[in-house]
C-alpha cells in the first residue's frame, strides 16, 4: 500500500552535516557497533534500517551522546562531538525522539515543548525573579514557538492537557514537537511510526517531509522498510552492528545482502557487496 515511488531528487549538496567515522562500541565482550561509518548531508532524509538488534538505536545513542564510542568519532557540522555532554550535543543542534515514548508525563503538552524551546534560552533564576525584559521575551518567544509546533504536528488543541493523558498517537507527535522546539539542525526519529496503523503511518511520513521542508535534516530509524522507501533520500542498512549497505532506496531494495538480512538467511550465505 505504501507508495513505492521514490523521491526523485536526493538533495545531495555535498555538504555533510553529520558523519560517523569508523565508530565501534563494545559493552564488555559484546560489540554493538563494529566500525560503522556513514554520513548525512544537509537537507537530506536518511533512513537507518536493519533487523532488530542491528544497532540502529545504539547508533542514535552514540550520536546523541548517551554512549561514548569505544573507538572512532562523530563529527557534526564540522566539529567533533564525541564525548560532549548530552545537553551540549542537544544545544549544538541534534534532537531526538525515543522508541519507547519518554515524555514528561506530569507536565502539559505545551510545557513539554517549552522545555525543548528552553534549550535555546539563556536567562536564569535571577532574571526570572526580577522579571527582566529579556526573560519575558524569551518566555513569550518560547511559548509562541511551542504553540506553533503543536499545531504543526497536529496536537494544537491539546496544549493544556497533561502529556501522560494524551492518546498514544498524540504522544508520539508531541515528542516530535518537543524535539523540534530545540531548533535542531538534525532531527533523529527513532521508530516514530511504531504502533501506528497504515493511514497514520502515511500521515507521519507526510509530516516528516514537511519537517524537511522547514530546513531540517532528518535521520529516521524505521522497521517498516516499505514505508521508509517512500520518504527517504538514501538508506543505510545495519546488521549485527555492521553497515551492510548505503545507497538509494531502489538500490538497497535489490541488494542481496539486505534481502538476506531481512529474510534471515544464514550469515555465511550472505554476499556483502564489498
Amino acid at each position: 500500500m505504501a507508495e513505492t515511488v521514490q523521491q526523485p531528487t536526493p538533495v545531495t549538496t555535498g555538504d555533510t552535516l553529520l558523519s560517523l567515522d569508523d565508530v565501534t562500541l563494545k559493552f564488555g565482550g559484546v560489540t554493538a557497533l563494529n566500525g560503522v561509518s556513514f554520513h548525512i548531508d544537509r537537507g537530506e532524509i536518511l533512513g537507518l534500517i536493519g533487523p532488530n538488534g542491528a544497532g540502529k538505536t545504539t547508533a542514535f545513542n552514540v550520536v546523541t551522546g548517551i554512549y561514548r564510542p569505544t573507538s572512532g568519532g562523530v563529527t557534526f557540522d564540522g566539529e567533533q562531538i564525541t564525548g560532549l555532554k548530552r545537553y551540549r550535543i542537544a544545544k549544538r543542534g541534534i534532537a531526538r525522539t525515543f522508541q519507547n515514548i519518554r515524555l514528561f508525563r506530569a507536565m502539559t503538552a505545551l510545557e513539554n515543548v517549552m522545555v525543548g524551546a528552553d534549550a535555546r534560552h539563556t536567562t536564569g533564576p535571577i532574571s526570572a525573579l526580577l522579571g527582566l525584559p529579556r526573560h519575558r521575551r524569551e518566555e513569550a518567544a518560547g511559548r509562541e514557538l511551542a504553540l506553533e509546533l503543536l499545531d504543526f504536528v497536529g496536537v494544537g488543541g491539546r496544549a493544556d492537557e497533561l502529556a501522560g493523558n494524551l492518546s498514544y498517537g498524540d504522544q508520539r507527535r508531541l515528542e516530535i514537537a518537543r524535539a523540534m522546539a530545540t531548533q535542531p539542525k538534525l532531527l533523529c526519529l527513532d521508530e516514530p511510526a511504531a504502533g501506528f496503523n497504515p493511514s497514520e503511518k502515511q500521515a507521519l511520513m507526510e509530516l516528516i517531509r514537511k519537517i524537511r521542508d522547514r530546513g531540517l535534516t532528518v535521520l529516521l530509524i524505521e522497521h517498516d522498510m516499505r514505508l521508509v522507501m517512500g520518504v527517504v533520500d538514501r538508506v543505510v542498512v545495519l546488521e549485527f552492528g555492521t553497515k551492510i549497505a548505503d545507497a538509494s532506496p531502489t538500490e538497497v531494495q535489490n541488494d542481496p545482502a539486505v534481502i538476506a538480512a531481512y529474510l534471515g538467511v544464514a550469515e555465511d550465505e550472505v554476499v556483502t557487496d564489498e
Partner: protein
Amino acid sequence: MSQTTSAPPRRSRRDLLGGLRRRLSGMPRWAQFLLMVAIALLCYVLPLLEPPIISTPGTDFGGVLFTVSVYVLVAVGLNIVVGYAGLLDLGYVGFYAIGAYTVGVLTAQHATWPWLLSLPVALVVTMVSGVLLGWPTLRVRGDYLAIVTLGFGEIVRLTLINSEWLGAARGIRPIPSPPSLPLFEVPHLDWSTGVPLVDFSDTTTFIEFGVTDPIPFYWLALTLIILVLLADKRIKDSRVGRAWEATREDEDAAELMGVPTFRFKLLAFAIGAFVGGIAGSLFATRQTFINPESFTLLISILFLSAVVVGGQGNRWGAVIGAVVVAYLPERFRGFEQWRVLVFGLALMLLAIYRPQGLLPPRRTVRAQRMEAETEALEVGEEPEDAVIAAGGPTPDDAAPTDEGSSRG
C-alpha cells in the same frame, strides 16, 4: 429529549480543598488578588485577634504562630527540592542548622555583629553548603541521595555537639534580636467574656523585637514567607521551573532536550538551602539561644512530612502541610504524651487514604479529573448506544468525540 442525564456523578464528594480551588481559579484576576491580600492581612492580625478555638490554650499564641511560620518557610524551601526537582532530601535540617549557627557564631559566639548584618552572611554560607553537598551527591540517584542527605544532616548535628568552637552541647547564646523601630502600640482582643473586647492593657509594640513578645517576629517571618512565595512562583513559572520538573519526570530525556540537569538540580539544592537558611536565622534570633537539640533528624522528617502531607510540588500544599504539622501538636498540647503517636498514625492514614497530599499540585488534580471524565464517558457509553439503537441521534452526530484514535 434524552438530556435527562444529570450532571457528572461523584464530582462533589469529599474533595473540599479541590472544589475550593476550582472556584478560586474561576474568579477574575483582580478578585483573586484582593482575596490574597485579604488573607495576608488576616494572617498579620491573627495573633492580635487571638480567636477562640484557634488560639492555643496554655502556650503563647504568637509564639505558636511564629513556630508555624518557620515551618511554613522551611516547607516552601524543601518543596523546591523535593516537590519540583524530585530530589528526596532527608537532611534538610542541616541547612536550617547552618543558617542558625552562622548567625549564632557571628552575633554571639565569636563576634558581636548585629543580626541584620549576620543574616546575609548566613544565607551565603547555607547556599554554599548546599552547593558543596550537592556537587558530589547529586550525581548519585534516588534513594541513595536520601540516605546521603540523611547522613549530611547527622554529620552537621554531631559536629555541632562535638565542636567546642560551636559551643558543643551547650549551644550558643545570647543571639541578638533584629533592630527595633517602636512606633505605636497595637491592642489585642480579649475573648474571656465570650465577646471580643479590645484590651488596651495587653498590647504589642509595632515594631519591637523583644524576648517577651514574639508577635513582631511572627510578622517578620510572615513577610519573608510572602516574599519567598512570590519568588517561588516566578521561578517555578520560568524556564528554571520547567527544567526542574522535566528532570524529575525523566532525567535522561531532559538532558537530551538540552537541559543541563545536574546544574539545575544543584540550583534547586542551593535555593532550597537558601530558604532553609532564612528559616534557621529567624529561629535563632527569636529563640535567642540555639543548641544541637533543635536540629535532630526527627525535625528533618517533620519538615519532609510537611511537604508530603500538603502535596509535594504545590507551594500552597507545602504551606498547608507545614501548618498541619506544626500547629496541630501545639494546639493539642494537653495530650502531649500522645502527640507523636497520633502524628505517626496520621501520617500512615494520610499515606493510605490521601496519597497525593492534602492539596496536590494542579497537574494531579487535572489528571484525576480527566480520569473521572473518561470513566464517566465509559460508564455513559451503554445508554448512549441504546439511544442510537432506538433510532435516536445518528451515529454521525455521536462520532466527533475525537477520543476514538487513542488505542486501547
